[in-house]
């Protein structure tokens, strides 16, 4: 039996496969169908094909990443009350929605909101979704403070991550071309981390966070291989350029 999966990287595709099939890595073989197009502007997904060792003990979930997820059965009391909380909040906002369990991973509980008003539930730059997620976490924290709740709708979070990483690569190319540093929009720690990791292995640029508080800005700085400066102050670096 074979099945195909995708991911931003080979590792991610493998992780996705392992997660969907609830299998350990050693229980299947991986064949890379499409290694993904390299380049800064567009990173297409890596496609892999999974060959399962043993067909019998495996029941693949009927779940596809891009489709609405089938609600997981027999949720426990904790999950049920968190789901009810999110559903009630949305309904009291005046919108109708179904809230389902998208995944359970370690201490994380992923919830998926299915609604015809997704646009409003997500909000500008996902701010309504983030607010819902924060409240859900505060609420869940009273019941079990080891669990983290991820609230998503229409796969917004994964799309947003991909978009951020693409934007980071694009900006890095500009910084390399102009040799001038660039300051990105204010972002939360999770988003900044994505940028730092994405540009970690890009030569000639480095990243630094600036500002105070939760929402800091990332600056992408040109670091020419010939004239490497160890000066950490951003302003004097700008003067040099």
């Amino acid at each position, binding site marked *: 039996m074979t099945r195909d999966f995708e991911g931003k990287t080979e590792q991610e595709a493998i992780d996705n496969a392992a997660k969907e099939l609830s299998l350990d890595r050693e229980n299947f073989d991986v064949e890379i169908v499409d290694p993904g197009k390299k380049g800064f502007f567009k990173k297409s997904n890596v496609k892999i094909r999974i060959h399962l060792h043993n067909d019998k003990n495996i029941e693949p979930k009927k779940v596809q990443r891009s489709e609405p997820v089938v609600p997981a059965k027999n949720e426990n009391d904790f999950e049920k009350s968190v789901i009810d*909380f999110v559903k*009630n*909040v949305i309904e*009291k*906002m*005046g*919108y109708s929605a179904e809230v389902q369990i998208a995944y359970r991973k370690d201490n994380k509980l992923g919830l998926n909101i299915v609604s015809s008003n997704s646009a*409003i*539930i997500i*909000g500008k730059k996902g*701010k*309504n979704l*983030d*607010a*819902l997620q*924060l*409240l859900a976490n*505060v*609420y869940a924290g*009273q019941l079990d403070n080891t669990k983290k709740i991820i609230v998503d709708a229409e796969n917004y979070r994964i799309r947003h991550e991909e978009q951020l990483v693409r934007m980071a690569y694009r900006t890095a190319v500009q910084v390399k071309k102009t040799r001038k540093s660039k300051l990105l929009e204010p972002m939360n720690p999770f988003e900044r981390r994505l940028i730092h990791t994405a540009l970690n292995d890009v030569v000639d640029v480095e990243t630094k966070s600036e500002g105070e*508080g*939760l929402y800091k800005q990332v600056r992408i700085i040109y670091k020419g291989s010939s004239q490497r400066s160890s000066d950490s102050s951003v302003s004097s670096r700008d003067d040099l350029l």
Partner: protein
Amino acid sequence: MEKDLVEYIAKSLVDDPDSVSVSMVEGEKSTILELRVAQDDIGKVIGKHGRIAKAVRTILSASATKSGKRAVLEILD
């Protein structure tokens, strides 16, 4: 309705739900919602650096876009 929304969220977050009360002052263009909670629960509805209060206000304005009226949340102590 906005009042129920704020009341529901506040009651879900505090230790003493019976002390939660929301009063509504209707204006022409905006509705002011005044939230009162037990003294010990104020931190629970405001949160560190006002994170929870901010989230509640975000949710509230998302809800208010439906009616086309602005809703303002005030937390009273």
